[in-house]
């Protein structure tokens, strides 16, 4: 192999690793809000992501809506739909036993598999990117697949927005205060019930957005929530609960390393992501950026 070929292969692996990392981040970031900020073991996170994917693909293929409005609609629809679910189900278990939360959300996952099969059938839902996101974009030096480039851009934009929105605003301070000390937060006049509802809707909306954006790589099918559960949990656990930067760094680490190792040592490729998770958690049980 020539030197230029080697360099080209490294760039290609770096780029695809980065794109995969962004998909991991986009679909997991919602969970870092509900599980990380609110402390709720929300294994049903994938259900909201899947719902976002279904809304997006249905709006595009059946109603002919363009990609961006459909994506926005998916995020908003999932966010709104999560409100009654939070009111009726999640709310009862805030601050409760973790096992109860696991049982409730796992039940929701199984119900979602059956419901999605009933409504959309067992087939994968194809995402047809719009023309401006198909094909390649020329970056001068070389060209890259347009959709994957777009994903990288979205990931970067989202992490900035969230970091500013949650670590730098009053809303974020309130959420963190309420999670750390619920009674104290209530006694200084924070409406925690409403605050949690908003936060939950935000997390679910982000899940819907991520499910829609990532649908090109992680195809939308009824067992989505179950199939990808390990990825969501790994990103949030490695990143550290309660942190906004954490999952981003974790997604980068896992996405790029996973792609790189599968390229270099394909025989052990699938194993690596778990070894890395194990290593990080042994070293820092609370994750890279977890609060003590």
């Amino acid at each position, binding site marked *: 192999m020539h030197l230029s070929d080697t360099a080209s292969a490294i760039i290609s692996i770096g780029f695809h690793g980065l794109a995969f990392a962004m998909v991991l981040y986009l679909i997991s970031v919602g969970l870092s809000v509900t599980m990380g900020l609110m402390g709720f073991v929300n294994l049903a996170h994938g259900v909201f992501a899947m719902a976002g994917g279904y809304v997006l693909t249905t709006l595009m293929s059946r109603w002919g809506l363009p990609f961006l409005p459909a994506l926005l609609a998916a995020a908003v629809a999932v966010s709104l739909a999560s409100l009654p679910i939070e009111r009726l189900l999640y709310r009862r278990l805030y601050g409760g036993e973790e096992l109860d939360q696991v049982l409730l959300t796992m039940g929701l996952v199984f119900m979602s598999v059956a419901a999605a099969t009933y409504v959309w059938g067992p087939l994968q839902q194809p995402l047809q990117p719009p023309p401006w996101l198909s094909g390649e974009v020329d970056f001068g030096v070389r060209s890259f697949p347009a959709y994957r480039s777009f994903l990288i851009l979205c990931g970067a934009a989202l992490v900035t927005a969230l970091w500013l929105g949650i670590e730098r605003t009053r809303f974020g301070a309130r959420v963190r205060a309420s999670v750390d000390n619920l009674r104290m937060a209530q006694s200084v006049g924070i409406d925690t019930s409403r605050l949690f509802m908003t936060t939950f809707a935000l997390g679910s909306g982000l899940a819907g957005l991520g499910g829609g954006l990532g649908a090109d790589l992680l195809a939308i099918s009824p067992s989505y929530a179950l199939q990808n559960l390990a*990825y969501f949990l790994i990103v949030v656990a490695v990143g550290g609960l309660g942190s906004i930067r954490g999952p981003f760094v974790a997604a980068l680490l896992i996405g790029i390393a996973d792609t790189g190792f599968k390229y270099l040592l394909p025989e052990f490729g699938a194993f690596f992501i778990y070894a890395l998770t194990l290593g990080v958690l042994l070293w820092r049980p609370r994750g890279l950026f977890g609060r003590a």
Partner: protein
Amino acid sequence: MRCGRFVVALIIVVSATCALLPRRAPAQTVVKIGLISSYSGFVAQAADQAQKGIDLYLKEHEKDLPQGVKVELVRRDDTSNPEVGKRLAQELITREHVQLLTGVILSPVAAAIAPLTAEAKVPLLISIAAGGSAIPRISPYVARVSFTLWQQGYPIGKWASEQGWKKAYTAVSDFIPGHDSEEAFTKGFRDGGGQIVGAVRMPPANPDFAPFVQRIRDAKPDVVFVWVPSVQATALVKAVRDLGLREADIQITSAQDLLPEEQLPAMGDTPLGLITSGNYSTVGERPGNANFLAAWKREYADGAIPNFLSVNAWDGMVAIFDLIKATKGKFTGDEAMAFFKNWKNPDSPRGPIMIDPETRDIVQNVYIRRLEQQNGKLANIEIATIPMVKDPWKEFNPPK
């Protein structure tokens, strides 16, 4: 006195019933058939495609059954799990008293059921997929109308080497059907004089294939053979597209699982020219296929697209109906096997097919198909026919 009258009444009722029963029986022969498929789990999509073929056949041809014979399909969901499949087969045989088992998508499920068929002398007609070559060797009561993985992998390996392609790379899913396909292609390609320059086995649960495809690109083979389960086909094809494998002048070959017809509409910007081997293509021009497609269109309109699984399952029903017609619905396990061993259908949607009496496995044409645009739609166009292929694995590995 009272007691005596009751006994007399009882005798009359019983004897009357007995007298009536045998007269009613011939008009009410019910052939009970156990249908085992993976309606849930990771191949649920395949089960749906196959079920549409079965339902359609029943609807179209139930009227052709001999007078007074009815078919009752007892459906069971193996949940894509061999243990469950085995338990259900047991239940179908002992409790439902089915005369025949059919269906089956996954090779491990078929392998788990096969030993039971020998014990109970209830035949299993594998009719959807389950392409593990060795399965009919497990029990003399197993026959197959679907296909074998070697039947697809070996011919395309040989065909590829005949195109003047010298160096090949294989990339398959790291589980049994992947291994079978890899071995079959490798043997076929080497038998034709080609050389394998690299092989990679990819994890069965893998969201992004870019790293593996990049490896293939680096190796610069003339041709690559890939095999992944249908559910991953779209993801793999996307990586092939994104990394420009076709533009790098690398030919891509696979088995028909990569480009199942019902998924083609979702593969809009798939690189053209992907070559697959298979036993059925919707655009194959055969009278049997024209009739099949017409029936399909009547039933499902544009709501569904048939693929090879639908046709395999349809042909399975043809074989079962032929058996029922020949025996008027009364057959033992041995009689059914004797019938299947010599069963032929010159006019299947996939062309002429027959079951090889020695191996009880399907003999059929294998088509080399190239993905092209036809009338504005993607289609697997048949470019070469390898006639009446027997399972090559069994020929290379004669029974000891």
